[in-house]
């Protein structure tokens, strides 16, 4: 092992990678949480069609490796799209939003964010569902007896209680999203794992390159950990005397 430190140039590469990892993880966390709620509700829906569809979704996305799913969205799915659509997706566009200019993300980013979100949704939904299931049956009956509609029962009685059970496993899934985002380097997304490998190949400072990447991931996970603790304290039931 050499004691040499990484040159500033390489640290800049790694910083870009870290930002990319944080960015794609954030998007995947937001999307999978929203979609996960919908999927969890669909799995316990009254209509059998929704239950069936939700079941198939969970089966497909939980039972195949994430790397294969990412390869599918990046390498295989484009074959289904017409050539002009691919051309459009790969040309930079600019989006004017409230005075900000948003630049069009690369196809690597689009495919990576979609793949990660779709995969994580299946897991997030299962956790939310177990939280909902954890609410005692009597709560439904009591709420329904007091004249609330089915939606009101969910919104005011069940979900607030379910969320308390769910904070910890949900943040576990978010941590998995951060770590799983490293697989997007397989489809050429320049996130933290990609840049660490790039730095390693350019500098041969193997220990330093992967060491910095490790610290980067630990840092991101630590942020999630702190958030989870704070949220848990906020939603915790007041102690009974």
């Amino acid at each position, binding site marked *: 092992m050499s004691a040499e430190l990484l040159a500033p140039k390489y640290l800049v590469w790694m910083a870009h990678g870290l930002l990319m990892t944080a960015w794609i993880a954030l998007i995947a966390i937001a999307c999978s949480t929203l979609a996960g709620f919908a999927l969890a509700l669909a799995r316990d829906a009254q209509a059998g069609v929704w239950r069936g569809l939700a079941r198939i979704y969970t089966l497909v996305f939980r039972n195949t490796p994430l790397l294969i799913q990412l390869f599918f969205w*990046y*390498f295989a799915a*484009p*074959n289904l799209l017409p*050539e002009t659509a*691919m*051309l459009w997706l*790969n040309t930079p566009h600019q989006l004017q939003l409230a005075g900000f200019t948003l630049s069009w993300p*690369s*196809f*690597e980013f689009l495919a990576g964010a979609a793949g990660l979100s779709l995969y994580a949704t299946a897991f997030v939904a299962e956790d939310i569902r177990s939280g909902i299931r954890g609410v005692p049956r009597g709560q439904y009956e009591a709420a329904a007896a007091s004249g609330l509609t089915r939606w009101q029962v969910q919104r005011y009685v069940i979900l607030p209680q379910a969320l308390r059970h769910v904070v910890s496993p949900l943040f576990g899934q978010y941590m998995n999203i951060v770590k799983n985002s490293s697989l997007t380097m*397989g*489809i*050429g997304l*320049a996130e933290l794992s*990609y840049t660490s*490998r*790039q730095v390693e*190949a*350019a500098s*041969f400072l193997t220990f330093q390159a992967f060491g910095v990447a490790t610290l980067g991931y630990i840092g991101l996970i630590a942020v999630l950990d702190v958030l989870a603790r704070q949220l848990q304290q906020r939603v915790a039931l007041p102690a009974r005397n």
Partner: protein
Amino acid sequence: MKIKTQVLALLLLGLASGAAMADKLDDIKKAGVLRVAAFDGNPPFGFVDEKTHKIIGLDVDYAQEVAKRLGVKLEIVPTNPANRIPLLTANKVDLVFANFTITPERAKVIDFSVPYFASGQQFLARKGTLKSPEQIASLRVGADKGTTMEATLREKYPNATVVLYDDTPFALTALRNGNVQAITQDGSKLVAILGNLPDKDKYEIPGFSISEELEGVGVPKGETRLVAYLNDTLKDLEKNGTASKIYDRWFGPDTKAPLPRLFKIGDAHIRTQ
């Protein structure tokens, strides 16, 4: 007298160090097996033969000649560009025959034989997209992770967008999907890739090269006797015509992708036509 003592001291030193550390060349002969890392997805250098399911190619032919001369069995370990150096430094293989470009950076970590193959970095693009090197700056170009292609591209065209993939087949799929507009590789490899494409009429290799790559055998650092042995072997293969026979087997006029031989073992540079 003084010179004599110095020679004697050097000799003793040589003997001492030879005795202290095991010599790879002897180890290979003793083991009766030469472990060589070669590509398994990079025709015609190293790839899996459809019929025999064994790894074959130009690199494997050279490795076979070296094993034959050593009188040992050849064992091929499949590798990819990024794993070549780790395999050597971790002593998982004795030599690397995997289209391995000699660079000063790499030579700090491992040793190289004299070059036995040379080529230039070229591009494969959809017909009409890439006419001159200046256009590269405005394109998205796919390359293999852990290769010199990426570094050269960044150095010469800092404005180009480089997208890295694990292997050439992935980069090729990205090109065919339209995710990148060109991919970059050794010209010799691109010729082979183009030759195998089902829709090859849509693609071309523009007639310029942005570098000269000299490829040698990767050897663990400090194995001077092994390097000398390899160099002698390679030069002999050139002298007795084996080198040109091996070349013709993969790039000769009767192959799918003929390419004139512009480099001979022992040359300093690619011959310019």
